[in-house]
């Protein structure tokens, strides 16, 4: 089983984590066309590469960002929302 590094709790087995999905910037609902909005809601990019994703350490409820390289099956880094710059 993989280990994932929670920014608060340290390395924990991946079974303790909840995966939400890729972080995608929401277009401005007032300006986006229907097609742009539908693309945001329904379409996902499955191409291998580094993804920014929402993960949650379920027992402690810590949400954080994981940068995961799906081509290498490796987590590049994890950090709390708003950090990592």
């Amino acid at each position, binding site marked *: 089983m993989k280990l994932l590094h929670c920014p608060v709790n340290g390395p924990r087995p991946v079974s303790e984590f909840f995966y939400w999905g890729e972080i995608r910037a929401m277009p401005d609902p007032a300006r986006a066309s229907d097609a742009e909005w539908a693309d945001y809601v329904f379409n996902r990019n499955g191409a291998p590469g580094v993804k920014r994703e929402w993960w*949650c350490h*379920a027992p402690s409820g810590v949400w954080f960002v994981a940068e995961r390289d799906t081509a290498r099956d490796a987590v590049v880094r994890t950090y709390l929302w708003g950090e990592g710059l």
Partner: protein
Amino acid sequence: MKRLAPLRGEWIDRSRRLVFELEGRRHAGFAGDTITSALCAADVRVLGRSFKYHRPRGVLSLANHDVNALLQWDDRPNVRADVTSLVEGMRLFAVNTDGGLDRDRRRFLDRLSPLLPVGFYYKAFHDRRWFPRWEAMFRALTGLGRVDVNTPRKRTPKRYDFCDVLVIGAGPSGLSAALVAADAGARVVIVDENARAGGSGTYALVGDDDPVAAHTAERVARCADHPRVSLRTGTVAAGCYADHWVPLVESDRITKMRARALVVATGAFEQPAVFRGNDVPGVMLASAAQRLLHRYGVAPMTRAVVLAANRDGYRAALDLLAHGIDVAAVADLNQSPADDEACRELASRGIPVRLGHGVYEARAGHDVLRDAMLAPLTPGGALNAARTERIACDGLVVSVGWAPAANLLYQAGARMRYDEVLAQFVPHALPSGVFACGRVNGVYAFDAKLADGERAGLEAARALGLRAAGNTLRVSVEPQRPSHPYPIFAHPKGKNFVDFDEDLQLQDFANAVQEGFDNIELLKRYTTVGMGPSQGKHSNMNAVRILARLTGQPIEAVGTTTARPFFHPVPLAHLAGRGFTVERETPLDSRHEALGAVFMLAAPWRRPEYYAVPGNRRLEAIREEVLAVRTAVGLIDVGTLGKIEVSGEDAAAFLERVYTGRFANMSPGTTRYGLMVDEAGTIIDDGVVARLGDQRFYFTTTTSGSANVYRELTRLNTMWRMQCGIVNVTGHRAAVNLAGPKAREVLARLTRANVTEAVFPYLAARELEVAGIPARVLRIGFVGELGYEIHVAHDRAVTLWDALMEAGSELGIRPFGIEAQRLLRLEKGHLIVGQDTDALTNPFEAGCAWAVKMDKPFFVGQRSLAILAKKPPRQALVGIELVPGEAIERVAECHLVIDACEIAGRVTSVAFSPTLGRHIGLAMLAPRLAQPGRQIAIRVTDGALVTAKVVRPPFYDADGRRQKLAEAA
């Protein structure tokens, strides 16, 4: 074969004699014997019958892949005789025979082998009409042990363990690595599948006094004594998962080991040569013969021929001599001796050494080896059949090469390359934190293995950030080649086996390639090479060599197949173990139990489906519960609802962004329906939102949605950074719903607060004391009657329940379960998210448009709903009434609505309403069918059609007067 005089370092305890039976014949061995070694000592030479041709088979490797010697031991099928410890009183039978080892009635199949070429099954038995007959025949003919379906269930615990460095393989290199890493400060676990540690240092010896044995034993002792080393024998590391997670399989359990670094010192599997008769009992690998000698004190034969292509073969010949076994001849596949010194020694003792010779054929008499036909090699590498030399022998010892036991390395993600000098695959690039040493790394000489182990141990320690002095230079290349590049010889009459599990002969590979299966993956699947119980441990390397030669490719280009975890068979009981399914109880569980509740699981919760009444059937009990709520008062445990508090200056604004409704304008002390949709506008949850104060909200979610809703809200606020806190009090708070025309009367008896309609109206929320317990009371009506949802701290729930039941006893109070609740809310037409809606339902289709406030600045899903609002709806949730008829009782949820032979909807809820005296339901219909009064056809499971009429819910108390019932005048 016989037992030798006691040897130094032997694994058996000659003071403890164990008696056992094989197919009814009694034998004796010693404690520490394996089944095979005890049988060998008793001169039993045929240990099994082969899978396909039922040929007699004996010892091959004694290294956990002698899969032709599988035995049935009571209810345990496929016990591996070569490695299973002997137990007093064992009663054993060979698997895969018809009539026993000696009189197997299926022996005739061996003579039919020319009619059973590779792919025979695929070509001959595909006829559809006859297939069931063939299948029955082959099921009877093939298959190994017998599974006893009455075997008692075994509870197999799992253990979790952690270490800094896990060393796999306690041979010379693994022991060195463990000691170096532990000296550097690492906590080391070293495992070995054998009953004792030492690996090749316990058998690849020349005579009893070989210093290799002493050096090895000294390292084993140091590991055993080292405070930071845990040495575990009888333990197979059976797979390698992500981040150095390794299942360690013992006889009675699995340990899930998490290591920070791995040292793979798994050694190599000795490989058979391929020649006619290479499977005759008496032909064995040199390592098998030497294991019998040194570990079990058994002479594997009286007169041996040695087929060698490396130093190990010569050392084995000298070892046999040292133990008083005649060596009739040594045939070396090489033109110059692999070990000059040993060659001279053999010559000086009068042993003929035939350089550039192989075995043309090993021949049997009465099922066991009688003689070997040696023949010189031609310059092309074939054997010259015209110049054979017959040598009588009862043992043929083969040492022509090795294949790395690299299964774990492959699983860890190592890249391997084929080294032409070593004629072996070796690690080329290892993943971080994984190290390899010893023979799996292509290092064979004893001193070199020790040095290589030290190097790997140091690298592992340094990878953990430990400071350790020492040299991590790679050890030098082998002085001589440990493996022959092509120890494979054709014979016009075949029976030169490549895979002993599946009875595959050399010609089978040529045929498969000729038929186009010329890629290693295709070849494997067509011939089944490596797919037997040994998983190719003795056959894959030869198959790769054969394929490379047949297709004219280099071995590197042919590649290997991947051994998946677990690469070694594991009893299913080890894997099954114990399930861990979460099952939650509300604090009122004991009360439900005492009241005769029949429980069901709702999400993870145990909830009363209904309360059984003696003499009543299920439906009658449920109908009585419904009647009590409609005419008197009922009480239901709704503590499984998700319960969440939001407080802070942005609390109202936050709720407005996550729910479709409006909450900012609520006054404290009121409640409002909350509907939640996702970004696509699909309904995901609903509940009741109560405003307790200006900046304080308390709301419920569905039972199954509570964890997800809370988690998603915390994510949204992580992102939005609004000024509010979100607390999940689902487990902390209990809740009951007191409902029915007499509910107010019951409540009034337990509180000093004024609960009159004027002071505590419908949809109000109050914080007051009930039965002396601080409570939040919500005046809501899910079941369509005057109702109070009472929320208290979970540890006061039982007191509250008892007080309500007591106060209501003379008013006819009855507890009711979720079946009654489902029916009551159905009469009111209230939908259940997840039952009446699915993963595509939006609020417009579910008739909830009233709960969606599109004029808010923003809420999750708003933009999608704006798009959906412009489009015609795809479906509509409507009420239905079934027209009485023959199949009416069989209509159930999910039955389809059929219109013009097409699916036009489905029933989402349906039940007989005792209150109304008819069958009612909800259905999701195509909009063209959704007008009230329209007749629809529902197809039940058996195909019968039931007519229903579309109606506008609610079915009961349409103007909702009963929920707002004023107190009796």
